[in-house]
């Protein structure tokens, strides 16, 4: 097949999807940009308003704070699981994998609801504590920062496990045998072999988890309080409650910019890996 013929064939296969994506993904993004500039006015007023709005600044700070801490905690939790999975023989690994896949596919609403049952004022944990101490215990664990963190780390952990596991499985077992023969201590093996060689997985996992958490909407809305309004909730507030579409769109543009900046390290890492293989 000649190049031109191949292009023509490709056009036939790819164009339906490309047209739908242009019409339903690219055009809406342009609409956001257009609206953020005040429509035909092409002014930066909405962005100026954002920078002077206390509500926005507080919510931006909250979003960054929650995203960074939730990503780091999920990294710790996910790494422990990935290490355990990497140690298993393939058949048993497939079985343990289900324990990661089921939560991965569980609806975020089911999880949020479950956490209101577990952490609520009359939830499982408070019930158990009341029974143990023999008095009425009602620790506030939802509608505050704690609830948001528990919900988000729970949701994000599987997204760390997959890339880190892939990195761990790619480590040449001969390195471990060599370390063993040299009688290196387990800690030393971890810090000189396992951790540095799993770095690509860590970078990929953390950056994708950060990207996801910047746009979190459901969990802060259902498990957080007034102090935990994230940018996504602010978009909802401006769009549907105050009907200030320009402000909502300006936040959307900023979120998009942050996400693109954050996905850069993962893409760069992948390209380096590909270059390394070639």
């Amino acid at each position, binding site marked *: 097949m000649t190049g031109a013929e*191949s*292009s023509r*064939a490709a*056009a*036939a*296969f*790819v164009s*339906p*999807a490309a047209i*739908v*994506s242009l019409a*339903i*993904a*690219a*055009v*809406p*993004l342009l*609409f*956001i940009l257009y609206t953020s500039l005040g429509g035909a006015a092409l002014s930066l007023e909405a962005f100026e308003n954002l920078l002077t709005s206390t509500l926005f600044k507080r919510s931006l700070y909250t979003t960054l704070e929650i995203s960074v801490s939730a990503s780091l905690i999920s990294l710790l*939790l*996910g790494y*422990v*699981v990935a290490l*355990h999975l*990497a*140690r*298993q023989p393939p058949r048993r690994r497939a079985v343990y994998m289900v324990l*990661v*896949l*089921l*939560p*991965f*596919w*569980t*609806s*975020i*609403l*089911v999880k*949020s*609801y*479950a956490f*209101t049952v*577990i952490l609520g004022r009359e939830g*499982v944990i408070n019930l158990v504590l009341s029974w143990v101490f023999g008095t009425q215990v009602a620790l506030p664990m939802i509608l505050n920062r704690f609830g948001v963190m528990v919900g988000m780390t*729970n949701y994000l*952990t*599987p997204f760390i496990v997959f890339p880190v596991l892939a990195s761990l499985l790619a480590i040449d077992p001969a390195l471990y045998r060599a370390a*063993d023969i040299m009688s290196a201590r387990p800690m030393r093996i971890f810090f000189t072999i396992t951790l540095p060689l799993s770095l690509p997985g860590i970078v990929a996992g953390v950056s994708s988890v950060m*990207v*996801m958490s910047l*746009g979190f*909407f*459901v969990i802060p809305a*259902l498990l957080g309080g007034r102090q935990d309004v994230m940018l996504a909730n602010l*978009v909802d507030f401006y769009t*549907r409650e105050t009907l200030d*579409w320009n402000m*909502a769109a300006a936040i*959307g543009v900023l979120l998009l910019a942050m*996400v693109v900046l954050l996905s850069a390290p993962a893409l760069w890492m992948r390209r380096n890996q590909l270059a390394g293989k070639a």
Partner: protein
Amino acid sequence: MSNAFDLKDPLKRRYRRFGTLLACLVYAFMLVPSLIVIPVSFGTQHEVRFPPREFSFELYQIFFSSAAWTGPLLQSLKIACLTTILALATAVPAAYGIVRHDFPGKKAITLLLMSPLVIPAIVMALGLYLYFSYIRLTGSTLALVLGHTIYVTPFVIVMVAAGVQKLDSNLEFGATLMGAGRYRMFATVVLPQLMPSILAGGLFAFLISFDEVVISWFLVSATTTTLPVKMYSSIQWEISPVIAAVSTMLTVLSFVICMLTAALQRSGRGQ
């Protein structure tokens, strides 16, 4: 990584046991929310409690006998089915074209098709809301189906492209050599071999659409409310115990689809 001789070292064994203990705690943390809704769903409507004091199917009866819940359920099923069909119809040929052909602008088009993986759902939801308000489509079932289709397309492309990469391109070349046209070859040689990946991609698309809440939250109207949107507002305002029954059914659905796709991918690999 694990072999018998390195476990003789007691220090190493202690670290390993500690690692396993930590991992089990994290597995439990990840699984508990998916599982705890099951016992709660067999309680009664007067209290949300774990463990429930008495066993009953009351919450399921309420769910299936109230139009406020079955309406959104049917709506979600309809949207998920239409989304799956539309996404498969566009994404399967696209995945094939991307893997097998080189063409000008391939990188840009691939980026466009995969972009919903990175763009936050809230940003897509806002964009679709502004755009569909402009063309007066907001609130319609069509708007929801189109929004969901864009959202699930990259997942289907990834799964199907992986399937195409495993195919033997000599068969396609052979068919073309024997005089089969491009579409005939695709329909009779490629599609049958791709069935496991297509089914797996379709199941994923269905589940993602059925569970999707952020885009739907922006696009629904009172008459087109989906099950996740109904759940979302229900958790936000009243925490009705019926949600436990819905959650249990959703968890079972996720589990079944997760197992089916795993089996399909394994059968695809066996070919």
